[in-house]
């Protein structure tokens, strides 16, 4: 066995550098693991498509109704598929005790929050990126408008900001998976309402001043809840 080099574990040059480095490491880790197993994405995706299918039969999606209903259908789909992703993402940490591994690292706890949140956001984007074209094709609606994409971005950020925190809590309880939607949905109602109204407004090509208040609401929500969630995260993981 080679002799070990006497290492002085030297911290990176700047604290910001090591913070970002650690966040990047967590995101990379989640993406790499997911790329191998593809469990999370495939289940989110299949679930999303099933939801759309169910909506097809549950609502009379005739051409006229479609424009008004598309926003709602999309966001319900994202919200439900999103909980799958959030649950799974935190469950992998909990199951092998990996959360302890993360907690042992000499980094600020918020690194874990941001790392997981960004990872969750990427997964949501992937699912959304696949659902949008499929929905467009199935219902002959052009969903690739910049305004709509912005709304989806803002809505996903708010959803994931709160969702990551709550998933970290839920995974440490007895009732786990079942608990996350119960905790999450009442708190993300502003996001869902604003995202649906803004999406619908964009699809129906309503005037900007009717859409802007919703977008403002999304931005405010995102800022407030990302800040609050990241401050409270410490208390969730420390014993």
């Amino acid at each position, binding site marked *: *066995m080679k002799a070990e080099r006497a290492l002085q574990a030297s911290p990176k040059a700047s604290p910001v550098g090591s913070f970002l480095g650690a966040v990047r490491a967590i995101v990379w880790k989640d993406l790499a693991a997911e790329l191998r197993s593809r469990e999370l994405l495939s289940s989110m995706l299949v679930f999303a498509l099933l939801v759309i299918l169910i909506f097809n039969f549950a609502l009379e999606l005739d051409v006229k109704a479609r424009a008004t209903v598309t926003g709602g259908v999309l966001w319900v789909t994202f919200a439900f598929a999103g909980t799958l992703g959030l649950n799974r993402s935190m469950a992998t940490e909990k199951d092998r005790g990996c959360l302890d591994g993360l907690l042992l690292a000499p980094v600020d706890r918020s690194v874990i929050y941001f790392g997981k949140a960004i990872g969750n956001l990427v997964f949501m984007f992937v699912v959304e990126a696949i659902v949008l074209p499929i929905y467009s094709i199935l219902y002959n609606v052009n969903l690739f408008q910049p305004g709509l994409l912005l709304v989806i971005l803002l809505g996903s950020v708010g959803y994931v900001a709160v969702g990551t925190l709550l998933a970290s809590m839920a995974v440490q309880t007895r009732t786990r998976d079942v608990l996350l939607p119960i905790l999450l949905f009442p708190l993300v109602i502003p996001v869902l309402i604003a995202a649906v109204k803004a999406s619908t407004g964009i699809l129906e090509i309503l005037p900007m001043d009717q859409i802007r208040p919703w977008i403002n609401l999304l931005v405010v929500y995102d800022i407030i809840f990302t800040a609050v969630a990241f401050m409270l995260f410490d208390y969730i993981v420390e014993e």
Partner: protein
Amino acid sequence: MITVKKLVKRFGLKPVLRGLDFHVEAGEFVALLGPNGAGKTTFLRILASLSRPSMGDVRIAGYHLPAQAAALRRRLGVVSHLPLLYGDLTAEENLVFYARMYGLPDINHRVAEVLELVGLAARRRDLVRTFSRGMQQRLAIGRAVLHDPEVMLFDEPHTGLDQDACQMLDTVLREVAARGRTVVMTSHDLARAADLASRFDVLSRGVIAASVKAADIQTNDLLAFYRESIGTGSVPG
């Protein structure tokens, strides 16, 4: 190196550790023995900075817990009975990840070194979920020494391993301990502990009931010593 004074840990209202005193000099290898539920894991978690004391003073390598926990973590290496590894990543990727979390320089070189140390260099590109438990534990030790910590904490590392795997593990443990590191290891297995440790402490009813140096006791007498310390006739485990 490690000084614990009057440590109390309560879960809600239930006290698990009741005014525990504990002292370890640099370079000692302490085997912490005790019956199930005595609080060994709880104690180790507090030392690992994963859990806060309810009351009392804990100092490791000069750092005060929990106040200076963040600074301490760099000097601490922990192996628990859960592997703390990601099944869907390769052995190499797991170590690279942790190296990045610890902000180590020259990651690839360091990871290669550690893989050699724990005898897993040949399996570096294999997914951890294909590893046997013994191999996972060895990789876990690799993870724990990546950042060259001064203090190592092992929580029942031999759990679930067969004889061969235990022997391999012991080789690594000795190698790791040989570099002047301070080690605290909880264990069920008196025989294994006897092989490795320089001191035996018994944790019973929330305090350290007894302590004896390996030099001062015969291996044969260890079981009797243990039974006496915990005050019942039960066998450890």
